[in-house]
Protein backbone atom coordinates (compact mmCIF):
# COMPACT_ATOMS: atom_id res chain seq x y z
CA UNK A 1 0.00 0.00 0.00
CA UNK A 2 1.57 3.20 -1.18
CA UNK A 3 1.93 5.89 1.49
CA UNK A 4 -0.15 9.01 1.10
CA UNK A 5 2.99 11.03 0.53
CA UNK A 6 4.18 8.93 -2.36
CA UNK A 7 0.82 8.77 -4.06
CA UNK A 8 0.48 12.54 -3.78
CA UNK A 9 3.87 12.94 -5.48
CA UNK A 10 2.78 10.51 -8.16
CA UNK A 11 -0.46 12.35 -8.74
CA UNK A 12 1.27 15.73 -8.78
CA UNK A 13 3.72 14.56 -11.40
CA UNK A 14 1.05 12.77 -13.47
CA UNK A 15 0.24 14.89 -16.48
CA UNK A 16 -2.90 17.05 -16.46
CA UNK A 17 -4.68 15.68 -19.50
CA UNK A 18 -7.55 18.12 -19.15
CA UNK A 19 -6.57 21.63 -20.16
CA UNK A 20 -7.70 24.78 -18.39
CA UNK A 21 -10.72 26.56 -19.76
CA UNK A 22 -13.20 23.71 -20.17
CA UNK A 23 -16.80 24.73 -19.81
CA UNK A 24 -18.01 22.50 -16.96
CA UNK A 25 -20.10 24.24 -14.31
CA UNK A 26 -18.36 25.72 -11.28
CA UNK A 27 -17.78 22.94 -8.77
CA UNK A 28 -18.54 20.09 -11.20
CA UNK A 29 -17.88 16.66 -9.68
CA UNK A 30 -17.71 15.01 -13.11
CA UNK A 31 -14.77 16.90 -14.57
CA UNK A 32 -12.89 16.63 -11.28
CA UNK A 33 -13.32 12.85 -11.48
CA UNK A 34 -12.20 12.75 -15.11
CA UNK A 35 -9.08 14.64 -14.08
CA UNK A 36 -8.06 11.71 -11.87
CA UNK A 37 -9.19 9.08 -14.35
CA UNK A 38 -6.90 10.54 -17.00
CA UNK A 39 -4.02 11.02 -14.57
CA UNK A 40 -4.24 7.32 -13.76
CA UNK A 41 -4.55 6.18 -17.38
CA UNK A 42 -2.02 8.41 -19.09
CA UNK A 43 -1.71 9.36 -22.73
CA UNK A 44 -2.19 5.96 -24.32
CA UNK A 45 -5.92 6.33 -23.85
CA UNK A 46 -8.98 6.78 -26.03
CA UNK A 47 -12.17 8.19 -24.53
CA UNK A 48 -15.57 7.34 -25.97
CA UNK A 49 -18.13 9.88 -24.81
CA UNK A 50 -21.88 9.50 -25.35
CA UNK A 51 -24.24 12.46 -25.21
CA UNK A 52 -23.74 13.86 -21.71
CA UNK A 53 -22.49 16.88 -19.85
CA UNK A 54 -18.98 15.91 -20.88
CA UNK A 55 -19.94 16.09 -24.55
CA UNK A 56 -20.48 19.77 -23.96
CA UNK A 57 -17.97 20.73 -21.30
CA UNK A 58 -15.10 19.47 -23.44
CA UNK A 59 -15.41 22.69 -25.40
CA UNK A 60 -16.63 24.06 -28.68
CA UNK A 61 -15.24 22.97 -32.07
CA UNK A 62 -12.48 23.40 -33.15
CA UNK A 63 -10.95 23.42 -29.65
CA UNK A 64 -11.22 20.71 -27.05
CA UNK A 65 -10.03 20.57 -23.45
CA UNK A 66 -9.06 16.89 -23.52
CA UNK A 67 -5.52 15.88 -24.41
CA UNK A 68 -6.43 12.32 -25.34
CA UNK A 69 -8.18 10.91 -28.42
CA UNK A 70 -11.90 11.42 -27.82
CA UNK A 71 -14.68 9.93 -29.92
CA UNK A 72 -18.02 11.57 -29.28
CA UNK A 73 -20.88 9.27 -30.12
CA UNK A 74 -24.64 8.88 -30.05
CA UNK A 75 -26.30 8.46 -26.68
CA UNK A 76 -26.82 4.70 -26.39
CA UNK A 77 -23.81 3.57 -28.37
CA UNK A 78 -20.71 4.28 -26.27
CA UNK A 79 -19.84 0.80 -25.03
CA UNK A 80 -20.34 -0.63 -28.53
CA UNK A 81 -18.17 2.02 -30.18
CA UNK A 82 -15.54 1.35 -27.53
CA UNK A 83 -15.73 -2.38 -28.26
CA UNK A 84 -15.23 -1.66 -31.95
CA UNK A 85 -12.30 0.68 -31.31
CA UNK A 86 -10.61 -1.92 -29.12
CA UNK A 87 -11.00 -4.68 -31.71
CA UNK A 88 -9.88 -2.30 -34.44
CA UNK A 89 -6.76 -1.40 -32.46
CA UNK A 90 -6.00 -5.04 -31.79
CA UNK A 91 -6.06 -5.67 -35.54
CA UNK A 92 -3.65 -2.76 -35.94
CA UNK A 93 -1.20 -4.10 -33.38
CA UNK A 94 -2.09 -1.81 -30.46
CA UNK A 95 -3.83 -4.12 -28.01
CA UNK A 96 -2.85 -2.23 -24.86
CA UNK A 97 -4.24 1.23 -25.52
CA UNK A 98 -6.78 2.06 -22.83
CA UNK A 99 -10.22 2.28 -24.41
CA UNK A 100 -12.54 3.98 -21.96
CA UNK A 101 -16.19 4.91 -21.99
CA UNK A 102 -16.76 8.13 -20.05
CA UNK A 103 -20.48 8.69 -19.71
CA UNK A 104 -23.24 9.71 -17.35
CA UNK A 105 -26.05 7.78 -15.76
CA UNK A 106 -28.29 8.68 -18.69
CA UNK A 107 -26.06 7.14 -21.31
CA UNK A 108 -24.96 4.10 -19.31
CA UNK A 109 -27.70 3.17 -16.83
CA UNK A 110 -30.69 4.06 -18.96
CA UNK A 111 -30.58 4.53 -22.71
CA UNK A 112 -27.25 2.76 -23.16
CA UNK A 113 -27.90 0.04 -20.64
CA UNK A 114 -28.22 -2.83 -23.10
CA UNK A 115 -25.03 -1.70 -24.76
CA UNK A 116 -23.11 -1.72 -21.47
CA UNK A 117 -24.59 -5.05 -20.49
CA UNK A 118 -23.73 -6.57 -23.87
CA UNK A 119 -20.15 -5.36 -23.71
CA UNK A 120 -19.87 -6.73 -20.16
CA UNK A 121 -21.26 -10.11 -21.14
CA UNK A 122 -18.75 -10.31 -23.98
CA UNK A 123 -16.02 -9.31 -21.51
CA UNK A 124 -14.80 -6.62 -23.90
CA UNK A 125 -11.39 -5.27 -22.90
CA UNK A 126 -12.64 -1.77 -22.11
CA UNK A 127 -13.21 0.34 -19.01
CA UNK A 128 -16.71 1.74 -18.65
CA UNK A 129 -16.72 4.66 -16.25
CA UNK A 130 -20.03 6.18 -15.25
CA UNK A 131 -20.01 9.56 -13.57
CA UNK A 132 -23.31 9.44 -11.75
CA UNK A 133 -24.86 12.85 -11.15
CA UNK A 134 -28.14 11.01 -10.55
CA UNK A 135 -30.25 12.64 -13.28
CA UNK A 136 -30.17 13.71 -16.92
CA UNK A 137 -28.26 16.86 -16.14
CA UNK A 138 -27.18 17.89 -19.61
CA UNK A 139 -30.78 18.25 -20.76
CA UNK A 140 -31.78 20.19 -17.65
CA UNK A 141 -32.14 17.89 -14.65
CA UNK A 142 -34.70 15.26 -15.59
CA UNK A 143 -34.85 12.06 -13.56
CA UNK A 144 -32.94 8.97 -14.57
CA UNK A 145 -33.08 5.41 -13.31
CA UNK A 146 -30.12 6.37 -11.16
CA UNK A 147 -31.95 9.20 -9.36
CA UNK A 148 -32.40 8.27 -5.68
CA UNK A 149 -35.82 8.06 -4.11
CA UNK A 150 -37.05 11.36 -2.77
CA UNK A 151 -35.03 13.50 -5.17
CA UNK A 152 -36.80 16.27 -7.04
CA UNK A 153 -36.05 16.72 -10.69
CA UNK A 154 -37.92 18.50 -13.44
CA UNK A 155 -39.81 15.27 -14.11
CA UNK A 156 -40.28 14.28 -10.46
CA UNK A 157 -41.55 17.43 -8.79
CA UNK A 158 -42.87 15.46 -5.82
CA UNK A 159 -39.65 13.52 -5.42
CA UNK A 160 -38.86 10.26 -7.19
CA UNK A 161 -40.87 7.35 -5.83
CA UNK A 162 -38.72 4.56 -7.14
CA UNK A 163 -35.42 3.61 -5.59
CA UNK A 164 -32.09 4.09 -7.33
CA UNK A 165 -31.03 1.71 -10.10
CA UNK A 166 -27.35 1.03 -9.51
CA UNK A 167 -25.11 0.32 -12.50
CA UNK A 168 -22.31 -1.03 -10.31
CA UNK A 169 -24.48 -3.62 -8.60
CA UNK A 170 -25.86 -4.70 -11.95
CA UNK A 171 -22.36 -4.91 -13.43
CA UNK A 172 -21.41 -7.11 -10.48
CA UNK A 173 -23.86 -9.70 -11.83
CA UNK A 174 -22.09 -9.91 -15.18
CA UNK A 175 -19.11 -12.06 -14.19
CA UNK A 176 -16.59 -9.38 -15.13
CA UNK A 177 -13.06 -9.07 -13.73
CA UNK A 178 -13.43 -5.72 -11.91
CA UNK A 179 -16.23 -3.49 -10.69
CA UNK A 180 -15.76 -0.58 -8.30
CA UNK A 181 -17.41 2.52 -6.97
CA UNK A 182 -15.56 5.79 -6.43
CA UNK A 183 -15.99 9.40 -5.41
CA UNK A 184 -13.95 12.51 -6.32
CA UNK A 185 -13.95 13.54 -2.64
CA UNK A 186 -11.59 10.59 -2.24
CA UNK A 187 -9.26 11.16 -5.18
CA UNK A 188 -6.49 8.76 -4.13
CA UNK A 189 -9.04 5.94 -3.91
CA UNK A 190 -10.42 6.88 -7.34
CA UNK A 191 -6.93 7.12 -8.84
CA UNK A 192 -5.89 3.73 -7.43
CA UNK A 193 -9.03 2.04 -8.69
CA UNK A 194 -8.53 3.37 -12.20
CA UNK A 195 -4.93 2.19 -12.11
CA UNK A 196 -6.07 -1.25 -11.05
CA UNK A 197 -8.62 -1.37 -13.85
CA UNK A 198 -5.93 -0.30 -16.31
CA UNK A 199 -3.88 -3.35 -15.42
CA UNK A 200 -6.67 -5.89 -15.91
CA UNK A 201 -7.69 -7.46 -19.23
CA UNK A 202 -11.40 -7.75 -19.80
CA UNK A 203 -14.42 -5.65 -18.86
CA UNK A 204 -14.07 -3.19 -15.99
CA UNK A 205 -16.69 -0.81 -14.67
CA UNK A 206 -16.19 2.08 -12.27
CA UNK A 207 -19.20 3.93 -10.90
CA UNK A 208 -18.35 7.42 -9.64
CA UNK A 209 -20.51 9.56 -7.37
CA UNK A 210 -20.61 12.89 -9.16
CA UNK A 211 -22.01 15.86 -7.19
CA UNK A 212 -23.72 18.42 -9.43
CA UNK A 213 -24.26 21.96 -8.03
CA UNK A 214 -27.03 23.11 -10.38
CA UNK A 215 -28.79 19.72 -10.46
CA UNK A 216 -28.68 18.96 -6.75
CA UNK A 217 -29.14 22.62 -5.84
CA UNK A 218 -26.28 23.41 -3.55
CA UNK A 219 -23.56 26.05 -3.47
CA UNK A 220 -20.72 25.27 -5.92
CA UNK A 221 -18.13 25.26 -3.17
CA UNK A 222 -19.71 22.33 -1.31
CA UNK A 223 -18.99 19.60 -3.85
CA UNK A 224 -16.30 17.91 -1.77
CA UNK A 225 -18.25 18.29 1.48
CA UNK A 226 -21.25 16.59 -0.12
CA UNK A 227 -19.03 13.92 -1.61
CA UNK A 228 -17.66 13.16 1.84
CA UNK A 229 -21.07 13.24 3.51
CA UNK A 230 -22.36 10.74 0.97
CA UNK A 231 -19.77 8.28 2.25
CA UNK A 232 -20.01 9.26 5.91
CA UNK A 233 -23.77 8.75 5.98
CA UNK A 234 -23.42 5.40 4.26
CA UNK A 235 -25.40 6.65 1.26
CA UNK A 236 -22.54 6.00 -1.14
CA UNK A 237 -20.58 2.84 -0.44
CA UNK A 238 -17.02 2.69 -1.70
CA UNK A 239 -16.14 -0.83 -2.71
CA UNK A 240 -14.30 -2.83 -5.32
CA UNK A 241 -14.94 -6.35 -6.51
CA UNK A 242 -12.75 -8.79 -8.36
CA UNK A 243 -14.19 -11.83 -10.04
CA UNK A 244 -12.02 -14.90 -9.74
CA UNK A 245 -13.23 -18.09 -11.40
CA UNK A 246 -16.80 -16.92 -11.26
CA UNK A 247 -16.65 -16.01 -7.59
CA UNK A 248 -17.15 -12.39 -6.57
CA UNK A 249 -14.58 -11.10 -4.09
CA UNK A 250 -15.75 -7.76 -2.80
CA UNK A 251 -13.87 -5.43 -0.49
CA UNK A 252 -15.18 -2.32 1.17
CA UNK A 253 -12.69 0.46 0.43
CA UNK A 254 -10.92 2.08 3.40
CA UNK A 255 -12.91 5.37 3.42
CA UNK A 256 -16.18 3.42 3.74
CA UNK A 257 -15.02 0.81 6.21
CA UNK A 258 -15.99 2.72 9.38
CA UNK A 259 -19.56 2.86 8.10
CA UNK A 260 -19.99 -0.88 7.96
CA UNK A 261 -21.19 -0.20 11.46
CA UNK A 262 -24.51 1.65 11.11
CA UNK A 263 -23.97 3.45 14.39
CA UNK A 264 -20.94 5.21 13.01
CA UNK A 265 -22.84 6.59 10.03
CA UNK A 266 -23.74 10.25 10.20
CA UNK A 267 -27.49 10.92 10.07
CA UNK A 268 -28.73 10.98 6.48
CA UNK A 269 -30.50 14.26 7.24
CA UNK A 270 -27.10 15.98 7.17
CA UNK A 271 -26.64 14.87 3.58
CA UNK A 272 -30.22 15.65 2.56
CA UNK A 273 -30.43 19.13 4.07
CA UNK A 274 -27.47 20.36 2.05
CA UNK A 275 -29.22 19.72 -1.26
CA UNK A 276 -32.28 21.49 -2.63
CA UNK A 277 -33.24 18.39 -4.58
CA UNK A 278 -34.28 16.71 -1.32
CA UNK A 279 -36.31 19.63 -0.05
CA UNK A 280 -39.83 18.63 0.83
CA UNK A 281 -39.01 15.02 1.61
CA UNK A 282 -41.61 13.74 4.02
CA UNK A 283 -40.60 11.78 7.14
CA UNK A 284 -41.96 8.65 5.43
CA UNK A 285 -39.74 9.21 2.40
CA UNK A 286 -36.73 9.77 4.62
CA UNK A 287 -37.48 6.53 6.46
CA UNK A 288 -37.75 4.73 3.14
CA UNK A 289 -34.40 6.14 2.10
CA UNK A 290 -32.82 5.05 5.40
CA UNK A 291 -34.14 1.56 4.85
CA UNK A 292 -32.79 1.57 1.34
CA UNK A 293 -29.34 2.53 2.64
CA UNK A 294 -29.43 -0.29 5.19
CA UNK A 295 -30.53 -2.74 2.50
CA UNK A 296 -27.70 -1.64 0.21
CA UNK A 297 -25.17 -2.40 2.95
CA UNK A 298 -26.77 -5.78 3.62
CA UNK A 299 -26.63 -6.61 -0.07
CA UNK A 300 -23.00 -5.53 -0.41
CA UNK A 301 -22.00 -7.48 2.68
CA UNK A 302 -23.27 -10.65 1.05
CA UNK A 303 -20.44 -10.41 -1.50
CA UNK A 304 -17.70 -9.84 1.01
CA UNK A 305 -15.40 -12.70 1.80
Amino acid at each position, binding site marked *: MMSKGNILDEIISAEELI*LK*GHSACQGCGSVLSLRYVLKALGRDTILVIPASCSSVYQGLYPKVAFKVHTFNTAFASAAAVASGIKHGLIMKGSPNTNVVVWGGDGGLTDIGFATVSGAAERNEDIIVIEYDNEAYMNTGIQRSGSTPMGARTTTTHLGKFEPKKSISLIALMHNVPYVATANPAYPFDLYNKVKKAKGIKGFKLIHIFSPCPPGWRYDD*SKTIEIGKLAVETGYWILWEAFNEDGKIKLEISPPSRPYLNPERRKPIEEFLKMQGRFRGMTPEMIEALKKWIDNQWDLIKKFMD
Partner: protein
Amino acid sequence: MKAEHLIISISKPEEGAGGKTGTWRVFRPIIDEKKCIKCQQCWMYCPDMAITTEGRHSVPKIDYEYCKGCLICHEVCPVGAISFIRES
Protein backbone atom coordinates in the same frame (compact mmCIF):
# COMPACT_ATOMS: atom_id res chain seq x y z
CA MET B 1 -6.10 24.38 -46.30
CA LYS B 2 -8.22 21.26 -45.79
CA ALA B 3 -9.68 19.74 -48.94
CA GLU B 4 -13.29 20.83 -49.35
CA HIS B 5 -14.62 17.30 -49.20
CA LEU B 6 -12.81 16.51 -45.94
CA ILE B 7 -13.98 19.21 -43.57
CA ILE B 8 -14.69 16.98 -40.60
CA SER B 9 -15.51 17.82 -37.00
CA ILE B 10 -12.00 17.23 -35.72
CA SER B 11 -11.09 19.34 -32.69
CA LYS B 12 -7.59 19.72 -31.29
CA PRO B 13 -6.65 20.11 -27.61
CA GLU B 14 -6.20 23.75 -26.64
CA GLU B 15 -6.44 25.82 -23.48
CA GLY B 16 -9.60 27.86 -23.28
CA ALA B 17 -11.78 25.47 -25.26
CA GLY B 18 -14.71 26.93 -23.36
CA GLY B 19 -13.40 30.46 -23.49
CA LYS B 20 -11.60 32.50 -20.82
CA THR B 21 -13.50 30.95 -17.94
CA GLY B 22 -11.96 33.37 -15.45
CA THR B 23 -14.67 35.77 -16.57
CA TRP B 24 -17.25 33.52 -14.91
CA ARG B 25 -15.99 34.52 -11.47
CA VAL B 26 -18.20 36.27 -8.97
CA PHE B 27 -15.81 35.62 -6.08
CA ARG B 28 -12.03 35.53 -6.30
CA PRO B 29 -10.16 33.10 -4.03
CA ILE B 30 -6.86 34.31 -2.58
CA ILE B 31 -4.21 32.06 -1.06
CA ASP B 32 -2.41 33.48 1.98
CA GLU B 33 1.12 32.13 1.51
CA LYS B 34 1.98 32.65 5.14
CA LYS B 35 -0.91 30.55 6.42
CA CYS B 36 -0.53 27.86 3.74
CA ILE B 37 0.77 24.53 5.06
CA LYS B 38 1.39 23.17 1.53
CA CYS B 39 -0.96 20.23 2.00
CA GLN B 40 -1.98 20.53 -1.71
CA GLN B 41 -5.68 19.95 -0.94
CA CYS B 42 -6.70 23.01 -2.95
CA TRP B 43 -4.69 21.79 -5.92
CA MET B 44 -6.18 18.33 -5.56
CA TYR B 45 -9.80 19.44 -5.54
CA CYS B 46 -9.81 22.14 -8.20
CA PRO B 47 -12.11 20.91 -10.99
CA ASP B 48 -10.67 23.43 -13.40
CA MET B 49 -6.95 22.69 -13.11
CA ALA B 50 -6.76 26.40 -12.33
CA ILE B 51 -4.53 25.77 -9.33
CA THR B 52 -1.04 24.61 -10.13
CA THR B 53 1.72 23.44 -7.85
CA GLU B 54 5.44 22.78 -8.02
CA GLY B 55 5.16 19.86 -5.64
CA ARG B 56 4.54 18.90 -2.07
CA HIS B 57 6.74 21.60 -0.66
CA SER B 58 5.39 24.57 -2.53
CA VAL B 59 2.50 26.97 -2.13
CA PRO B 60 0.03 26.37 -4.97
CA LYS B 61 -0.80 29.20 -7.36
CA ILE B 62 -4.18 30.20 -8.74
CA ASP B 63 -4.48 30.94 -12.45
CA TYR B 64 -7.04 33.73 -12.52
CA GLU B 65 -7.41 33.54 -16.26
CA TYR B 66 -9.32 30.28 -15.82
CA CYS B 67 -10.39 30.11 -12.15
CA LYS B 68 -14.20 30.07 -12.14
CA GLY B 69 -14.47 31.05 -8.48
CA CYS B 70 -16.32 27.91 -7.33
CA LEU B 71 -14.53 28.30 -3.97
CA ILE B 72 -14.02 24.58 -3.41
CA CYS B 73 -10.44 25.51 -2.55
CA HIS B 74 -11.67 27.89 0.14
CA GLU B 75 -13.86 25.11 1.57
CA VAL B 76 -11.28 22.33 1.59
CA CYS B 77 -8.32 24.29 2.93
CA PRO B 78 -7.79 22.82 6.42
CA VAL B 79 -6.22 25.98 7.84
CA GLY B 80 -8.41 28.66 6.27
CA ALA B 81 -5.53 30.01 4.21
CA ILE B 82 -7.80 30.74 1.27
CA SER B 83 -10.13 33.70 1.58
CA PHE B 84 -12.27 35.29 -1.09
CA ILE B 85 -13.39 38.71 -2.20
CA ARG B 86 -16.03 39.84 -4.61
CA GLU B 87 -14.71 40.19 -8.12
CA SER B 88 -14.71 43.87 -9.07
